[in-house]
């Protein structure tokens, strides 16, 4: 009894100190579980419930429609009481551009829940939502998501959207997809016992599996491929399934046609989903940071996507490196990597467009990796099998069962289920949700944060006055990446001196030091307004002065698409 009371007291104390809020608070305004997956209708309903439960902080909108007409529902999280949306740096987060890579949507839901449910309760999270804007689109490809969840698939199928494509160029589209012959909800494999002359034999170590025979051996099995019946009777199996393109190759930066990049689509943004997202990003130049969730492999990926593109400028790489290294700490078993060097070449990828086309610091996280199965870096070839047998109690592998195939006759069907390899087992989902949310929220904290360090008004005699200001970005992410400045992406930052009274501005300079020779003529727009193409870099302070005649009072305003707006008055 005493022990029970002690435990109860300890729990109350923990709750009072907020320790329980390390993740989600116990009492949720919108109940949700993170040990299950949601279909698109459930996701949309949850977004609506968040909007209803947090009307002052959440706004849901439809930014476009998928090929099959599903709405692309995006939620904006921000606190309008603390400033205008466009005056705040924003982070954009999306997921599930590949239909089968579903767990990112749950990470998005977790991020939404985490920020909203903790607002006013947890200091850092409250500050984040007060100071930043979050645009979150849990599923870029709702058609592919629902198709993967509701229909028979493999772990890797339903990657595409669902616009019919004539993949085998025979004049018909989507006429020969796989068939769930045994009706088990997954597309598994077909094998046939041929007696001799086969390519495979039963694995002596585990009779559930086949192994390829050596050159001097006679196999008694052949593998026919994944479940299918050659619907179009062309002698090829499953060669023209649903869709057959890649939304993550359909973005305009370094887009290459289909003959160079498989899945590219007819032209950049030819698909309604990618176009809607692209239009949204361009309409929200305050987005300074971006995350797109995929699976699998445990990677924190940045561009460039192809070897023909130059490495990012050094200062930009320093920002990525710092965030990437931080990510590796937050996300055990994840590695920070460069797409084309460490994974594969991607032309027309989304984060490449965001980074190189729009000047946004952008990452793709590949969720779930093999090390998570047994929580160790040391992985082995039997891990998948052992995990199925020891942890998933056999649910990831369907044993071979006989089947009478219309073309091949007596065959067997069996193998790995669709949820066995790329998505988190539901019981391991919540940790992935939290750690990836933490990665993005740390990144959101690193978005530019500006303040005036100093501001002075000095009388130089004969009616001449010197206005000086120093403005600083306290954070890691610059207001303008070097790529953005070099390619004139978006608008430069502007620093403007104004006064309600008429005044003359005789000169303006950037102060690189205290001496006159260290005064640099900035790029002027009508002298009172300076154009800062390269913005404010990582934790950088820049100082400026104007020589003016006029009574004042003066106001200096710094305006940056990604850094927001700061104003400082200079009274005489």
């Amino acid at each position, binding site marked *: 009894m005493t022990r029970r009371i002690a435990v109860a007291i300890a729990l109350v104390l923990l709750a009072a100190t907020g320790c329980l809020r390390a993740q989600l608070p116990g009492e949720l305004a919108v109940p949700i579980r993170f040990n299950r997956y949601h279909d698109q209708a459930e996701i949309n309903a949850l977004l609506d419930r968040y909007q209803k439960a947090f009307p002052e902080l959440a706004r849901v909108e439809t930014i476009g429609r998928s090929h099959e007409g599903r709405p692309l529902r995006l939620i904006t999280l921000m606190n309008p009481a603390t400033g205008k949306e466009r005056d705040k740096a924003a982070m954009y987060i999306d997921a599930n551009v590949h239909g089968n890579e579903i767990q990112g949507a749950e990470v998005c839901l977790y991020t939404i829940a985490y920020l909203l449910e903790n607002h006013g309760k947890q200091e850092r999270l409250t500050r984040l939502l007060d100071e930043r804007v979050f645009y979150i689109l849990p599923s870029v490809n709702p058609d592919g998501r629902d198709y993967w969840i509701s229909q028979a698939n493999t772990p890797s199928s339903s990657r595409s959207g669902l616009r019919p494509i004539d993949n085998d*160029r025979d004049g018909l589209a989507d006429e020969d997809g796989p068939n769930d012959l045994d009706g088990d909800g997954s597309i598994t494999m077909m094998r046939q016992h041929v007696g001799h002359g086969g390519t495979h034999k039963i694995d002596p170590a585990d009779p559930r599996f086949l192994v390829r025979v050596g050159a001097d051996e006679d196999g008694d099995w052949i593998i026919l491929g994944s479940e299918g019946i050659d619907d179009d009777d062309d002698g090829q199996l499953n060669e023209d399934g649903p869709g057959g393109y890649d939304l993550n190759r359909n973005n305009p930066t370094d887009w290459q046609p289909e003959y160079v990049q498989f899945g590219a689509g007819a*032209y950049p943004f030819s698909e309604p989903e990618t176009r809607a997202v692209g239009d949204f990003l361009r309409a929200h130049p305050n987005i300074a940071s971006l995350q797109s969730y995929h699976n699998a492999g445990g990677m924190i990926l940045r561009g460039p996507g192809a070897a023909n593109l130059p490495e990012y400028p050094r200062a930009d790489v320093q920002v990525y490196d710092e965030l990437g290294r931080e990510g590796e700490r937050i996300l055990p078993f994840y590695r920070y990597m460069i797409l084309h060097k460490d994974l594969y070449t991607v032309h027309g990828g989304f984060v490449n467009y965001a980074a190189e086309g729009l000047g946004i610091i952008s990452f793709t996280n590949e969720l779930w990796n093999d090390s998570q199965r047994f929580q160790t870096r040391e992985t082995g070839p039997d891990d998948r099998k052992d995990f199925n047998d020891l942890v998933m109690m056999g649910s990831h592998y369907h044993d071979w069962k006989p089947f009478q195939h219309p073309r091949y006759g007596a065959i067997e069907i069996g193998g790995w289920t669709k949820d066995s390899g790329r998505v988190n087992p539901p019981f391991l989902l919540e940790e992935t949700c939290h750690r990836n949310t933490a990665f993005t929220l740390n990144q959101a904290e690193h978005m530019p944060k500006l303040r005036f360090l100093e501001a002075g008004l000095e009388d130089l005699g004969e009616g001449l006055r010197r206005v000086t200001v120093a403005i600083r970005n306290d954070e890691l992410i610059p207001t303008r990446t070097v790529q953005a400045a070099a390619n004139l992406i978006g608008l430069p930052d502007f620093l403007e001196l104004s006064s309600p009274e008429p005044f003359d501005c005789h000169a303006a300079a950037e102060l690189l030091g205290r001496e006159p020779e260290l005064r640099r003529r900035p790029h002027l727009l009508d002298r009172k307004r300076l*154009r800062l193409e390269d913005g404010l870099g990582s934790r950088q302070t820049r100082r400026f002065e104007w020589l003016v005649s006029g009574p004042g009072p003066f106001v200096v305003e710094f305006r940056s698409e990604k850094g927001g707006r700061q104003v400082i008055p200079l009274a005489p």
Partner: protein
Amino acid sequence: MKLLSILAALALLIVRGGAQAPPDAYLDAARLDSDLKRLAAWGQPSRVRLEPVGTSREGRPIVALRVGDLDRPALDGLPATLAARGAHRPAILLVSGLESDILVGSAVLMHLVATWLDLPEEEFARRFADHDLLILPRVDLDGSERYFRKGARCDLPGAAGSIDQDRDGRDADEDQPLDLDADGLILEMRWPDPEGTFITDEKDPRLLVAADAQHRGRYLRNIEGRDQDGDGEFAEDPAVGVQLDRNFPQGFVEHDLASGPHPMSEPETRALADFVLARPEIAVVVVFGGHDNLAEIPAAESKPPARREPRRAPTAADRKLLEQVAALLAQEGKPFKARDRAAPGSFHDWCYYQLGLPSFAICLFEAQAGESPKAAATSQPNEIGPVSRPAEDALQLEAERVHREAFRPWTAFDHPQLGPVEIGGFEPYVRRNPAATFIAMIAARQERFLAALAAQLPRLGIADLRVTATGPGLYEIELDVVNDGTMPSTTEQAETCRVPLPLQLVLDLPRDRVLQGQVRETLAALPARVGRHAARWLIRGRQGERLAILLAPAHGPLLREEVVLP
């Protein structure tokens, strides 16, 4: 109301009665639209049909016409894979008006449409015996409206749409060009400056050329205007949008405001792309505009692109096709070279490099310095027949005349901000748009060129069809697929980009009755004239049974040969 209907009926009678004179004028968007509809209504439904393309940024309907033998029945009873291809007949797509400042193409196409629809029955049937035409007279409807604007004009290229050209974060279009000297034209300003980067051209002192290492720059130049937004730049934020013929994905220049935020960002370019992609019958593309690839044929690639690299120059075989078609065009007079050789993001390059279509860009008119300065100063559109002596080509003479006479001499002007400057330069639009009196002549030449081009289309056929009984219920079928046309069945680039459907040979039989040979065979492209592919099947059948063999070229028409088993 009744009176109105009678009037309408009378109007229709008059129109149908042949009062359809070719317009021969530069038409604004409203007139172009009504003329297109009028032509479509006037022509016989079996000859002409309106096909909507899309809507411009400012809401104008972009419309194409299909002209040809439109009553031709589609083949029926086809296998599912060929059902969609049964109605196809090869089409030549004619596009103009991709650039806002070039209107001659649309005038010429409207003239041609009226001419085609007015052809007598037999002549029409002959002209359109084996192909249709898809005619899209103007794509940049909005931008071209600036030509018709009252008051001072300039011919800055670009569609409608506001771009913050000077990226000052203020309202877009706040620093427009102006007619400072009130002469009704917006020309150019030049002024001497120690930091000048231009000098006068030694050959033609009216013109400015960039200074080089040997010649120190003397002048600065700018379009006529003031610094209205106080940023030290002059007329740097005019009200023009994206240049549509830079907005296609082949060679697209990223981070260039004139090219657009991304390929196919504009409603017009996307509509045109979707229009083309939805019409696999398009076999050849001809663009009348500011580019050309027939007067100056681009060099062939020296080696094929590396793996995962796009092609950027035509293959040697495809360049030969350009040469072949250039020779046809040259028969109609010396073709005009485009002002700029490079065509980044252009429609015609997209059609060739990414769709694999033979794609020809033709510049219909470009004012240029004459080869013989003493050539007749009064050129007349008096010559319609084929041209044998280019030096006396009336159109060339007109181009030289415009170059000579349409230049307003530099005239001193006291600029309110710059001080003394000179204002002068070519009158807007005239260098690329000849007087309307030349439209008929250009149209006649282009019609001869287009007819000759159509005569060169690939002509796929089945030859030497032989059926032999080789055993009980066993038959051998042999045939050759041939190309009698003067063009290859598809370009070499089509084989690379794999956008056009492949040439298919189909034996319309269940697979289990075919003992040898493929029921559906995909054939490689067949070269012009010598192209030949042998096919053979061994099948089970019975005497007197009728079988169909189908040949489906990439762009049509579908051919069906019937075989009776002996």
